[in-house]
């Protein structure tokens, strides 16, 4: 085929392949675009529209303009939910990423060289295991562990004589959100680990050797060279984790229902409550719209920075 292409190259340049190439392919685009419009664009626009109405879900919506948005601004639960999301973003993005980074570095440099591929893969698989379970099931497992009367955590604390540390983990406002964070950190560690380990593979070991010869310690090598070299991956991990944290829903649904009080309520769950149990569809749409705008801004920011980075390199 390739030979033929070469030999007929001169002929193809005279063919008007430009527009006919694109025309013929347009038809393949149609199903995707149609479905996309039907399932995503129109519902999204409809939801934005709903956010300007008052509606119980049946009957006709009533236009109220920016009322819902004004209400949201004055609603303390609205602010609490986004505050909780922000806290989740900060904790879930930094801690697992850092741990993943250090683990990846250690596994890659030390374990791989000393113990070989198999062991490294074993460790990596073990750390990644929580990721393969639905986040809801992970939540159920942790709710089971954190049960105040017979749960594993309190049982263990009592067994080693630290009984005074036992708590109603999910029932106490000061420990509820941290408990959910613990679960999400546990859940999330594997993801940056796997990505960073793959990233490290594309780093030329010559760079390290040069640095080691120059007298740099492991720490210095790691922080100044490694991190800079795998910056694109760190970037991807950070952004995808931010979005994951912003979309928290199942964990809250299954572990605390937003409680105690509103200590663990998040934007997704708050929107869901308004849609389905409080029959305030318009207000629920408002919350969902605000969340969407935030997420889209984050995503657009990411895409722009990635373009900039590519242009730089």
């Amino acid at each position, binding site marked *: 085929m*390739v030979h033929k292409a070469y030999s007929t190259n001169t002929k193809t340049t005279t063919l008007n392949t430009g527009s006919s190439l694109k025309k013929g*392919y347009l038809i393949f685009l149609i199903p995707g*675009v149609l479905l996309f419009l039907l399932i995503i664009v129109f519902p999204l626009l409809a939801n934005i529209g709903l956010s300007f109405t008052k509606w119980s879900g049946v009957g006709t919506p009533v236009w109220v303009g920016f009322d819902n948005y004004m209400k949201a601004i004055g609603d303390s639960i609205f602010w609490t939910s986004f505050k909780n999301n922000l806290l989740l973003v900060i904790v879930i993005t930094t801690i697992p990423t850092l741990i993943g980074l250090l683990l990846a570095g250690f596994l890659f440099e030390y374990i791989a060289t000393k113990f070989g591929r198999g062991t490294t893969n074993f460790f990596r698989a073990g750390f990644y295991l929580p990721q393969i379970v639905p*986040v809801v099931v992970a939540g159920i497992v942790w709710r089971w562990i954190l049960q105040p009367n*017979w749960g594993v955590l309190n049982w263990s604390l009592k067994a080693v004589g630290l009984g005074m540390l036992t708590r109603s983990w999910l029932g106490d406002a000061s420990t509820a959100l941290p408990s959910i964070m613990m679960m999400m950190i546990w859940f999330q560690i594997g993801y940056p680990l796997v990505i960073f380990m793959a990233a490290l593979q594309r780093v030329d070991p010559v760079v390290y050797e040069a640095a080691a010869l120059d007298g740099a310690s492991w720490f210095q090598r790691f922080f100044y060279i490694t991190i800079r070299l795998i910056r694109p991956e760190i970037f991807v991990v950070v952004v995808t984790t931010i979005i994951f944290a912003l979309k928290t829903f199942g964990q809250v649904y299954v572990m605390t229902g937003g409680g105690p009080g509103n200590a663990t309520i998040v934007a997704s769950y708050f929107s869901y409550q308004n849609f389905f149990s409080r029959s305030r569809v318009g207000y629920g749409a408002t919350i969902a719209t605000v969340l969407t705008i935030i997420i889209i801004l984050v995503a657009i920011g990411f895409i722009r920075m990635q373009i900039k980075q590519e242009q730089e390199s």
Partner: protein
Amino acid sequence: MDNKSIIFNRMVKSLSLFAIIVLLLIMLLPFALIMINSFKTEAEYYVSGPFSLPKSFNLDTLKGVWNMMDFSIKLRNSIIISLSTALLAIAISLFTAFALGIGKVKGKFFFIVFFLLAMVLPQEVLVFPLYYLFKLLGLYNTQFSLILTIAVLYSSFGTYLLSSVFSVFTRETIEAAEIDGCNKLQLLFRIVVPVSMPSLSVLFVFFFIWSWNEFFMPLIFLISNNKQTIPIAMALARGEYGETVTSQAAAALLGIIPCIIFFVLFQRTLTKGITLGSIK
């Protein structure tokens, strides 16, 4: 390096190794606990605590939970939905990426960005209008509506991935094929698909597992018990089989086992795929 720093280095390394092993054990502990406590009787748990190994392989709790949850049916539903979603999503991604990546339709970049935004949307923002749409079409409470919705959502990621994979095909190769008498469909199925099979398998595994783990959409769209998936069944677990320590563990175990099976089977594809998606 002098002796002192060599020894220090070794100590740090051994300590770190120890720390990592401990960390790994902690990571896996929840799974282990769920497993051993599903086989105990309730009394055993209260007497010997969560860390003791079960005296005997007591399957009663598991059986009871399996029946109460109609687990066979939920398992069947999860399989059907995940399989269909993955296949449909790949089909849509294939066609769209074909047009964008190979046909190089104008505005490719815009399309891809547009599609990608679909992946990041929180699902609540789509659900109420979609509910209405499906109700109008008489499709509410059907698995098809769920499969369609999720497949479209995933196909945005698939399109993004495949179009960059398809950039492997140079203009010359494509034109050569066309000169050879290949029409577009033949080009797609005889050349593009076989060459990109590795990426397609990665996508398949990804889509399968993602849709298996879906929670919000199935929660809203699947009302009938006999249509629900495993994550939904787990979350709604209440009543008799939710009452004891061991039955709660057993229920969780049932939810975890299929995932572990997937993982063991598809570990390599998964790790390959995650990295594929992160770098364009």
